[in-house]
């Protein structure tokens, strides 16, 4: 049973560029949440997708957008990259939607984005 997978593992981009990160949820899961984790900090919730729609959103600018596909996989897009966007981006999956993106989420290994 495959867990949550993310690609790529590492990515280096230049300020001002755009980036797309990908996530495949755990088998049987239909909800995907994205988090940003800066070095030495806990993850911060970006948004959650369920039934191909954004259901919940954290305090992140519109430069951060996403998409969920019919097979439940998801993409995170970040436009006009800033140096401060450098972080580990985590994807988490769960089954069903019931308020906050919380209990028993399964996390992927993350994509480490470096913006130079």
């Amino acid at each position, binding site marked *: 049973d495959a867990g949550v997978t993310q690609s790529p593992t590492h990515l280096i981009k230049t300020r001002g560029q755009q980036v797309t990160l990908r996530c495949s949820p755990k088998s049987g899961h239909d909800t995907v949440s994205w988090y940003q984790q800066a070095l030495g*900090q806990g993850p911060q919730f970006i948004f959650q997708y369920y039934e191909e729609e954004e259901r919940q959103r954290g305090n992140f600018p519109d430069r951060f957008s996403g998409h969920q596909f019919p097979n439940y996989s998801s993409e995170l897009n970040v436009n006009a990259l800033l140096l401060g966007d450098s972080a580990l981006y*985590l994807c988490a999956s769960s089954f069903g939607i019931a308020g906050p993106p919380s209990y028993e989420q399964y996390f992927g290994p993350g994509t480490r984005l470096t913006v130079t």
Partner: protein
Amino acid sequence: SQELEQSPQSLIVQEGKNLTINCTSSKTLYGLYWYKQKYGEGLIFLMMLQKGGEEKSHEKITAKLDEKKQQSSLHITASQPSHAGIYLCGADMDNDMRFGAGTRLTVKP
């Protein structure tokens, strides 16, 4: 400021020693979660606590939620090198999930 304060920020213990990590909130916690993260990797779910006074154990790790549901502790008994990593508490807050900054645990053999 962090809505979930974790202490200590880092901890170095000798193998075999016991240790405790704390997570404190200024608000009542309706769902408190403990995760472990190895450096640069994803989070591994450890335990979920919901009721005041609740205590759960898994192997040598015990987590408690106080009666007021504003503080949780994670206790590791007879620590091993495999316990090393970053321990994060998370909670449902304002319709999303918030995390503490984490406690980095080093276990010296």
